[in-house]
């Protein structure tokens, strides 16, 4: 009996030693670090600049690291094994026009073969900053009162005039990329790059919407566009949105998109002049606006009318060659703003927006009532004299407490401040990793 017990103890000891050895070995590997140097490569006419922030994001857990460039545009990191995305934004001004230089290098694989002797080059490209920006995207749906699956027809976007001058929305169009979802196989990648980036266009899938009447957006003001169900949804879903507001706009043309659940007749208080109209070139009974992670952008045609652009058969592209998945080639220089939303928890997210439009991405969780909301440009906002005493701080609507969540590091509560009479300047670096965070609930629910 004693012998048997001894033998068991011996086995147990051996197993413990083996497990310890294995776990030690793994631990060593996990925490081994490697140097990673990022070099910003500027377009012709621009010189490298010191103290530009380079962000390195781990694709596994979305954790970020930042480092500043030296005078040669080089930033140094020390990382563990993993896959990283590097991005940088350099704001410049000249001749009274603001420009942003954006760049990103994705899928940098650091493994035990990594030597770190060569710089990772991030090529920056120039893009304009716009007066009209996307302030908020609410796309993932709202929890229902009976616990059934989330209500998904209260998706909406909010446009914002981020300047001190009135902005015209006459030619502004709303579009979403195709593929609609970020985590599905993306057939647009050729040799690891979006093929249309070299061709200078961005795909607008299925249809785009435009304002049927002239609209002017006053400085630092917003325009709400209900993408579906432009009615008071809160009577049934208490956590949803009440769109029965004469100030609001909606995407509604029941003759072209007639999906019953998506397009009930808008609230009678919304004037019909506030209905955006679609140019439809794809198929389907409703506009496809991803509930998992849209890549949404706004554009304004130049040199031709919205009508001409919408009906032209020569600017069409078939996604993956599929005749059923038609999209318009929107020249990148027409794009005013865009936001790339990734699906939290999916490891197959891939960028759809061109780097010039959005050099980054923001993760979102659907079905919880969260929205993607723009960060406040703290210095620009505080620089506005009228804002003195009107800004509310201690912003608490971020989702930093949730795994993968984010918040606005400016600390300014934009909605409370606006209600207090402040004028908010939002961050606009054409890099949604810096410009956006995930908010606990839609700003329209702020009372």
């Amino acid at each position, binding site marked *: 009996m004693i012998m048997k017990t001894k033998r068991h103890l011996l086995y147990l000891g051996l197993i413990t030693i083996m497990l310890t050895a294995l776990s030690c070995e793994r631990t060593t590997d996990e925490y081994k670090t490697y140097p990673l140097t990022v070099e910003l490569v500027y377009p012709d006419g621009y010189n490298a600049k010191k103290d530009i922030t380079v962000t390195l994001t781990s694709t596994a857990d979305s954790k970020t690291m930042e480092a500043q460039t030296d005078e040669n545009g080089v930033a140094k990191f020390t990382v563990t094994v993993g896959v990283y995305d590097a991005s940088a934004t350099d704001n410049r001004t000249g001749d009274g026009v603001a420009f942003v230089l954006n760049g990103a290098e994705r899928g940098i694989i650091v493994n035990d073969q990594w030597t770190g002797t060569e710089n990772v080059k991030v090529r920056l490209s120039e893009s304009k900053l716009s007066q009209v920006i996307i302030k908020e995207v609410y796309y993932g749906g709202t929890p*229902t*009162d*009976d*616990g*059934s*699956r989330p*209500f998904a*027809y209260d998706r909406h976007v909010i446009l914002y005039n981020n300047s001190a001058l009135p902005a015209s929305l006459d030619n502004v169009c709303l579009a979403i990329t195709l593929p609609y979802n970020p985590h599905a196989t993306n057939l647009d990648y050729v040799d690891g790059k979006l093929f249309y980036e070299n061709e200078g266009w961005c795909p607008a899938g299925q249809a785009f919407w435009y304002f049927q009447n002239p609209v002017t957006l006053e400085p630092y003001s917003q325009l709400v566009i209900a993408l579906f*169900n432009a*009615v*008071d*949804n*809160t*009577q*049934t*879903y208490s956590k*949803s949105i009440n769109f*029965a507001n004469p100030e609001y706009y909606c995407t509604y043309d*029941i*003759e*072209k998109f*007639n999906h*019953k*659940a998506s397009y*009930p*007749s*808008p*609230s*009678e*208080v*919304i*004037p*019909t002049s506030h209905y955006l109209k679609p140019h*439809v*070139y794809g*198929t389907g009974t409703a506009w496809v606006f991803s509930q998992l992670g849209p890549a949404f952008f706004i554009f304004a045609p130049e040199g031709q009318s919205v009508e001409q652009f919408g*009906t*032209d*058969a*020569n600017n*069409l*592209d*078939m996604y*993956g*060659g*599929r*005749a*059923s998945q038609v999209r318009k080639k929107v020249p990148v220089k027409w794009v005013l703003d865009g936001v790339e939303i990734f699906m939290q928890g999916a490891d197959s997210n891939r960028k759809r927006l061109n780097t010039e439009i959005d050099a980054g991405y923001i993760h979102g969780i659907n079905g919880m009532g969260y929205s993607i909301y723009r960060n406040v440009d703290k210095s620009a906002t505080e620089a506005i004299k009228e804002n003195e005493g009107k800004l509310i701080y201690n912003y608490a609507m971020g989702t930093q407490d949730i795994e993968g969540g984010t918040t606005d590091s400016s600390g300014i509560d934009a909605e409370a401040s606006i209600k207090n009479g402040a004028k908010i300047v939002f961050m606009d670096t054409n890099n949604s990793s810096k410009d956006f965070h995930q908010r606990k609930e839609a700003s329209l629910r702020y009372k």
Partner: protein
Amino acid sequence: MGRGIILQVVLLVISGSVAAQATFPVKGSVVDASNKQAIELATIWIPELDRWTTTDKEGRFTINNVTEGRYEVQCKVLGYRDTTFQVNVNDKLKFLDIALSPNSLALPEVEVTSKMGSRNLATTYNIDQTAIQHMQLLNVADVGSLLPGGKSSRNNTLNSASYIALRSKPGGESDNPTFGTGVEVDGLRLSTNSAFSQANAMHTYGVDTRNIASSNVASVEVITGIPSVEYGDISNGVVKINTFQGKTPLHFLFSSNINSKQLAVSKGFALREQLGILNMNIERAKSVSDIASPYTSYSRNSLSLKYSNTLNRENGRPLSLVVSLTGNVGGSNSVNDPDAFRDTYSKRSDNTLRGGIQATWRVNTAWLSNLTFSLSTVLSNNTSEQKTNASSPVSTASLHGKEEGYFVATHYAENPNAHILIVPRGYWYNTVYEENRPSDLRLELKVDLTKKVANRVYSKSKVGTQHVASGNSGRGIYYKDLSLAPTWREFRYSDEPVMHNTSFFAEEKLIVMIHSHKLEMIAGLRNDFTYIAKSEYGLISSLSPRFNIGFQSDYRNDRLFRRYSLHAGWGKMVKLPSFTILYPRPSYTDELTFAPGTLADGTTFYAYHTMPSRLIYNSGLRWQENQQLEVGVSGTMGKTNISVSAFYNKTGNPYMQNAEYVPFSYKFTGQTALENSPIPSANRRYQVDQESGIVSVVDRTGIIPTYPLDYKERTRFKGNYYYENGTPIHRVGLEWVIDFGKIKPLNSSIRVDGNLYHYKNSEDRMLPGTSGNRMSDGNHYKYLGFYPGGTSVSNASLTKECNTNLTLVTHIPSVRLVVSLRVECSLYSYSQRLSEWHGERRGFVLNAKEDYFPSATKWDIYERDQFVGLYPDYYVSIDDMQTKIPFEEAFRWAKENDQVLYNDLARLVKKSNYKSTFNPARLTPFYSANINVTKEIGENVSISFYAKNFLNNLAQVKSTENNRKQTLYNSGRIPAFYYGLTCRVKI
């Protein structure tokens, strides 16, 4: 249709008189070889003369007046191994002592695979009880895996429907091969003719075999060749399932695999005083679709009773009587699934009652040998019930009316029978039922005469008639609470007329004995008359002639080919249409014509224009038919048996749906018409004129007079559908089975079986198509293109396959063990999409996917990796449907001269979805290996175990279509690693 064709009874006239020949009785007894006890009700049969009888209580039998000659005699009875021997009938014939060995693995020979034969000169596969037990049949459809080149089912549970498709592939072929396969249980035909298919009108599936109790299956005979004219309403062969008939001990069966459990009890009772035998089988089988959440399940609860007896045995004119009754209560059910939202569920019953009586009387006169009468009925109940939750922040409109015209939504409380009902906002549940109760009543009378017409020449004549009445007494789809139901229109299945089919058939078989060889010829003709009351189809006649010829050598040990045989046949078979095809449910085009803004209480008074359409009657529709030619060769070379069969199969007049487009106008009243209305929205009531569609606003207070709203006229195409006969489908195949015989030192035998299969379909009709997009001016699309071969760039397909299976069977009688290892190999799998029009290539190569014009340098659409476009031959405008405008010419002109027309016509250009669309898809070979073990423990217990894909093959296959590799895991190409165990006990 409606052509009246008079049945031309073809009977070969046997000329010449037959010299009177001496006759003798064949007498004997049948005993159990193990204990020498008499066996009652064993069948003794002389096939050449079609003379038969059964043994009495003492095991004795007598067949009187057998003409002098040498005959094959067969003796069979349930539970014993069949025996066949030669007998010289003459004055020296002695009393035959037949000893039958009880079926067991202790016998030197057992069959655990299908046995290829040519009964009645048609290629046939027989699967006996040992093979069925060894494979642990849970679903009868799985016997298909035992056919040459057959693959083990990927469907391991009973949770999804299972069908049998012979000499075809069950999915993806355009003439519904499962629907054309006849399935019979004890001669009782199962049919889905009168079932309504909700899901896909084009795909009427065949018999779902899940409700057949597999524990009661004694043997299965699969006729893939040209069957006798007795078999009608088929196009792809017949599967004959035979249940247990005869005295048996009490059997218990328990079977279990990862998802399923099966429990069965059966016994064959010998009733006292020679009152016959009553077989009983009770089975319960249950499958869950997901073992992690075992709440959604399919269950089978079956009770089978079968009474059999032979009366009037003593005077040489026996009457065989079989009465059977089978009931099954079961189906799928998710009521208790905790993963579903609370109180939601779906269930579907699979209840059936099958009953039949068959009497065969050995009349034994000079002009009549046997008279067979059968009456059977199959009643099914496939009612489904689904409870779902719903919610909406606004009121919704539910359309229920069937009338044409404009209607405005109404509250249920105001008018429950309104054309459009308002479902208020909030949360609610819907319970929807689909009551589908197909039934068949079948009556058959058949007489046959077998006689010796000359020295060594035998004739077997057969004449018969069948009548089948198929109907459906189901209510169709309906909702528990109409006030909350979504858009739905009542369509009662029971209102559709019964389909009657009366058929007459005649067949003559000649057997000529040449020395010890045998030459056989069969000629038969069947004429089906189909009558559908109150139907425009009227009386439809269809002829099915069939011919078979065969030669069988004698058996000699002193030559290389000890035995050889040849058979060939040609035949035509007609498949009757299903109710889904005959009575398609009416469709309704509901166009939203008015949608005033939603009120604060969430209510909106929508108005719709409804246009009902029923399928257009096609006077030229002909019944789908199948012509088959087959040649078979088999022989025994040494110990090796070789059987090869080749076939050519052409499905003519396949049922296809087509659309006829007609212009359709309606009035649309936009919301802008309501702006500045003098009547406050809370006081408004909307009226719409049913005919004119003009919307008027009524002041509920009566202060402001009613006034009409402005509208816009809209015109669009509306499709009306009809069935027509499509382009023939061709199949060619070769099947082989090579049994190498037993290697005695190893107690093992090797079998190789396989098939070559070639399938091609095409589309030669000129078909219309329009675009779902709008015109450049925002109006409905107004052009209609006519495309040669249809609107799809790929309108045909080609499939080629080579499958080979290797089976190693090790049978050790001394320990009552049999182990079979089967390797299923897919050696060649090829498919390609084609674009054809009357045998010529159509379409053109595009240089880039965005292009609309043919490449100037590339012509071959089948060159790798290129996009292909297709133009309509011509198009018409909704404004002038008569003027046909050549498309390409107009499109090229518009490109240079009219940008708007060009943009609009571009929508008629069809393009392939992928550049790989026309690439040939050839897969690298792949395999899967199964192992089955059966062990008998003593006389009373046997245990079987199986493991499918037991090597857990997770390899990758590469397709030449896109040069990508894909894993076999979960691919549907081979089964997943799976195992099960069955225990049988007899007392």
